[in-house]
């Protein structure tokens, strides 16, 4: 195999990882706080991407285009939590039932988008910029911007979680919601905030996805969700750093396997790593697994 392609594939893997990481950080934050596996996350991501696509088609400028995706993602996420999920939660449904509700919500979003888009694939006009050589790696200006965006989101999340009272409250809620509530943490506000941030990151992930892949279709999010969940679980639920590292492993693994001529198995390879980690993972630290069985929406 050509060693240049192998090295280049690592660079492409880092870009892929950046795309996965933004989604995985949003997913893991919401999973950590609410303990709910939100299967509509990928569809909210698609919704965000379509929102940006529409704004871009309206020629409203770069900033509105970038802001549309996280904004729509946040609104959709909160709406889902405060309407469907809230109704089912009030009826004392458990984790599994709520998971099925998120799956149903995701399918409703996907099929609605499908119907509106007439099963078409749309192109997103976003200039990729010049090619940049960094050592053996090859990037475009756009891919560097995506990597930068992922790093920025990680830094912002870490700062918010560890340097602010809000972050402390969220972390407390994720560890022991009952104790957190007893200590005066405003639970409803914190949960709403989580859905907003998680939804905004889903929307942003959609935008990042579409700028990288150049195209968007109604079903894009569902496939992408597999990688996002893989990264979130591999990284440990509720851990943004873990999610980013896991995204890096999956992104680089898929591209390197493709470079070895195994493009038929590239995604399977990434998921095989996930399976391996789940089997071999230690039972402490970030892989200690869920410590509560209560869902909080």
């Amino acid at each position, binding site marked *: 195999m050509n060693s240049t392609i192998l090295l280049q594939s690592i660079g492409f893997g880092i870009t892929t990882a950046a795309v996965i990481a933004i989604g995985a950080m949003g997913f893991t934050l919401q999973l950590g706080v609410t303990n709910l596996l939100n299967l509509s996350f990928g569809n909210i991501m698609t919704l965000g991407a379509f929102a940006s696509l529409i704004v871009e088609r309206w020629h409203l400028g770069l900033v509105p285009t970038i802001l549309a995706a996280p904004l729509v993602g946040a609104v959709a996420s909160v709406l889902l939590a405060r309407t469907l999920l809230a109704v089912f939660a009030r*009826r004392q*449904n*458990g*984790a599994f039932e709520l998971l099925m509700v998120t799956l149903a919500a995701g399918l409703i979003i996907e099929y609605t988008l499908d119907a509106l888009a007439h099963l078409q694939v*749309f192109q997103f006009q976003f200039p990729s910029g010049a090619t940049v050589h960094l050592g053996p790696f090859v990037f475009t200006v756009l891919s560097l911007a995506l990597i930068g965006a992922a790093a920025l989101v990680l830094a912002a999340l870490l700062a918010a979680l560890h340097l602010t009272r809000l972050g402390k409250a969220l972390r407390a809620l994720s560890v022991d919601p009952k104790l957190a509530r007893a200590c005066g943490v405003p639970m409803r506000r914190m949960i709403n905030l989580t859905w907003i941030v998680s939804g905004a990151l889903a929307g942003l992930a959609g935008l990042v996805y579409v700028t990288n892949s150049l*195209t968007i279709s109604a079903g894009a999010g569902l496939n992408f969700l597999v990688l996002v969940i893989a990264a979130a679980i591999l990284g440990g639920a509720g851990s943004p750093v873990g999610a980013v590292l896991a995204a890096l492993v999956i992104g680089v693994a898929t591209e390197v396997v493709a470079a070895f001529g195994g*493009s038929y198995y590239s995604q399977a390879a990434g998921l095989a790593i996930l399976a391996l980690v789940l089997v071999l993972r230690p039972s402490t630290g970030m892989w200690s697994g869920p410590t509560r069985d209560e869902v909080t929406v």
Partner: protein
Amino acid sequence: MPVKTGRPRVIGAIATALIVAAAGTAAATAKQAHTARKTIQFGQIADFTGVGAAVISYDNASQLSAEYAINAAGGILGEKVVNVPIDTKSDPADGLVAVERALATNNIGVVTGPLTDTAPVVVPILQRHNVITVCPCGNPNFDHTSDPYFWRLVPPDPVGGETMALFAKRNHLTRVAAVFGTDQGSQGDLPGVLFGVKAAHMRLVANIGLTPDQTSYRTQVEQLIAAKPQVIFTESDGATAATFFGELKQLGKLVPIYGTNATIQTPYLNALDAAIGTKNLSRYYRGEANASARTSPAASAYNAAVTKIANRLPKPLSQWLGNPFVEANYDGLIMAALAMDASHSTNPKVANSWIPKVTEPGPGKTIVYSYAAGLRALKRGKKIEYIGAAGPIRFDKWHNSFPNQAMLTVKPNGTPVSSFTIPATAIEKLR
């Protein structure tokens, strides 16, 4: 808001849903049985949902236009044809269940379908039930089938590869890269394309698989560029193609792109057009298809029928006019209907053997180009030869018929702009 498990409620909900579903099924069955007494049912076995659903409109176009043409002429032996959609959900296992259920609850004598993805599993069931099967499937295992009810008017998959190879050779392009999606449909067509490359003594410099809907294919793009192909033979879903070829275009490395007949469909072409631009689509892309006899009376009859049902199809109408895939299915249904008229029976066991009798040439036969003309001739006691919209129908002993092939330049909506015909005889020489 903390919540707890509510298992009894869930079980109750499931039980209610099952009762409602059972009641609905019983009502539907009763209604279908009532309908079956007055009409002839044509099954439409297709991917209405699932990964193959993007091309369902092509099935609808052929089925609905053929049924319109038959009913407008008075039906078969005075009975109207009704459509029975059967959803395979793009999955062989689901397809099997859906077809078994449909055959058990309806009186279906003729079907179009199944498609390549479900055909190996579903076709034997249809044979067991003696259903005339007009199959738009490309699976090579039907090249020499002994199933008497199986009729195929589309070429087997290798023909696509052979046509593309002959066209590439004509253009002095000998270094070929195969770029195929890893989905079942695309992979089903890959062996035929590789066979064509080998048969035409061309050089396969890369065989690249694309897992659908990835965020990027840069590694695969670099692999392709390193292999220095002169032409790409391809099939995948539209989104995958758009990402891959969009990235290839960004690097300024586009080469001629020859797509299988599965790529001459609006979702794919729109996506490719969006990714590489209309100018590049026209310059680099060629799609493989049956050579359509676009100016024949049969093509005009098909165009008239599809225009009548255009309000039930996605716009624009132009994408359905002269579409080779749709025409082949349409011809199959018209042929089956004429066989029923000629045999004076809607029983598929009787009508099936009459199919060659209404399509083969022969002395004294009246050539007809539409269902209405065929019916009129039969009523006058004439023997007929039906010439289809896609051209004459010539079945071999395994009930396969494929016309001359063509490489098309198309508009993004699939409307052919120009075509280069590859004669069926030239393709057969490769085999």
